[in-house]
């Protein structure tokens, strides 16, 4: 033994040193690792009171509260991907939305933004940060699917909404006032100038561009775009706008901002259907449009529930579809 140590002492010391380094390295690398466990051949997710909850059991626990809702999300994603073709415009819009989200996450989370983004994407059924563009694209494709459904089923889905919410496209001219209950001579003169221009036969859009003091809409000929009964306008304006037929112009209407002249540009479906907000408001009024649109498209794609009638019934019930 002594002879061996004399001969190989340095080698032995160096070996012991390296074993120590590797052992410490090994401990340091593994101390934060989540160790696995098996019970009767099944992976264990957690234990409590020496009872193992396996992956299969945990699936059943999660499925009770989240299963059908998660299945619907996957169902919808698959239908959307199978039904709607991607356009260059969609890709560009999706990329823009994704860039905005990344920028927002970077501001909020700094160096860990990607980690936070992935956490949220995983809850939506995606895997990596690079799936953000895909998520945005899927959202745009879903909108297209719903729009197509609405266009194809306008008679059944549009009429109840139109009767309840009076959707329309409107424009206005605003003369701002410090105290609308007591207009100054100058403010009255501006209203007179608008009246005179309209009486001469000038188009409303031109008069709005020239005289309206709502600078945001003035550059667009006074157009405020799509609105309905739920649009957040001041009450007198909202009431005045909803009372008009297509092509009609209101009398001067007083609001907290001053006086408005409002024109109802259109109330017909074909015009309304060119506005994205129209579909947002329509699906808010009739939430079942979305699952119905998804189900209708699914019929054309080769749908197979693998003879699992119980699952199919639960999914259809969640979607509000009765076959």
């Amino acid at each position, binding site marked *: 033994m002594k002879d061996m140590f004399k001969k190989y002492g340095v080698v032995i010391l160096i*070996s012991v040193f*390296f*074993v120590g380094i*590797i*052992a410490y*390295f*090994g401990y340091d*690398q*593994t101390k934060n*690792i*989540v*160790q*696995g*466990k098996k019970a009767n*051949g*099944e*992976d*264990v*997710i*957690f*234990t*409590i*009171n*020496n*009872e193992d*909850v*396996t*992956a*299969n059991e*945990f*699936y059943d*626990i*999660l*499925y009770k*509260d*989240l*299963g059908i809702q*998660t*299945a619907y*999300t*996957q*169902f919808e994603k*698959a239908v959307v*991907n*199978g039904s709607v073709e991607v356009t260059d415009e969609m890709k560009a819009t999706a990329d823009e939305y994704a860039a905005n989200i990344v920028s927002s996450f970077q501001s909020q989370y700094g160096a860990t933004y990607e980690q936070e983004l992935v*956490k949220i994407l*995983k*809850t*939506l*059924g995606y895997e990596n940060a690079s799936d953000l563009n895909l998520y945005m694209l899927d959202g745009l494709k879903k909108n297209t699917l719903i729009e197509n459904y609405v266009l194809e089923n306008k008679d059944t889905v549009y009429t109840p909404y139109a009767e309840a919410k009076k959707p329309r496209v409107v424009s206005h001219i605003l003369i701002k006032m410090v105290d609308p209950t007591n207009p100054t001579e100058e403010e009255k003169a501006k209203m007179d100038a608008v009246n005179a221009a309209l009486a001469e036969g000038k188009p409303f859009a031109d008069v709005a561009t020239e005289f309206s003091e709502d600078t945001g809409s003035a550059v667009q000929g006074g157009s405020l775009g799509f609105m309905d009964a739920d649009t957040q306008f001041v009450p007198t304006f909202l009431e005045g706008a909803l009372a008009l037929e297509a092509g009609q112009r209101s009398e001067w209407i007083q609001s907290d901002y001053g006086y408005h002249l409002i024109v109802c540009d259109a109330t017909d479906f074909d015009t309304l259907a060119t506005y994205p907000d129209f579909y947002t408001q329509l699906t808010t009024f009739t939430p079942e449009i979305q699952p119905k649109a998804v189900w209708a498209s*699914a019929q054309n*794609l*080769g*749908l*197979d*529930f*693998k003879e*699992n009638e119980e*699952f*199919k019934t639960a999914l259809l019930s969640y979607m509000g579809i009765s076959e």
Partner: protein
Amino acid sequence: MKKILLSLCALLLLTGCSDAYGKLTDGNTVLFTIGDTQVTKDDLFKTMKAQASGYAAISEATRVILENEVPVTPEIEEAAKASLETYRATYGESFPLMLQSYGYADEDDFYTNSLLVNAQLTELTKKYVTDNFDQLVKTHDPKEAIILTFATEADALAAKADLESGIDGITVGSTYNSSSAGAERIITTSTDLDTNVKSFIQNATENTISDVIVGSENETYSIVQITEVDPNNLKDEITTVLANLDTTASESDVFYFKKYGFKIYDKDLFDNIQTNYPSYILD
């Protein structure tokens, strides 16, 4: 030498170990296909885990703990039923709709899975306080006191004289317009009080009546009567107060999760709990 080299290699391999992810035995089971897309049980499992694995695991573990520590008694059922009546009275006809919006099928579901569980958790926290009374008393230093606060020093001095003559705190408080009610209450280190008043109470070692205590931040004049410094003489009252502290419920959870050996073997679950419920990471 060969054996040493082999051991070194084995140690190197060990350092390459990675986190465990619990897998389903039938994860490849296809739930449905749409065109070329298959959705499997694995797909659902991944998403559900990301959404709520922490909440689900903690709820399930809590259920096991409650089964063992706090079986349902008639008193617990009574407390849960009283809560249900309060909800019914508050929400009236919209109660069923309110329940549905929170994901409950009906009143029975709400009663069994929320109200009864909450009543059991309240008892569990009380049990934790009772079983760990001495240690919690050391941390929270509870004492019983009457605190009277006045706008003028003259009122405070007059109140002190009345207390010393044996008149009760509520009467004295009312006589001299104290801004506090004058009833005896349990004060702990968590109680929100003026610094100087709190300091007097925490330093008290016997039943006594203070001199006038001037407020630390505003012009107030307080008199404090310490009515009990020995927590063992007020065990029930102190247990109720400590059980209702914000920190006690979470301390109790961690205590029982440790007692029942809660251990995680899945990285997704670990990450979810670490992000959303970090106090339940016990290792």
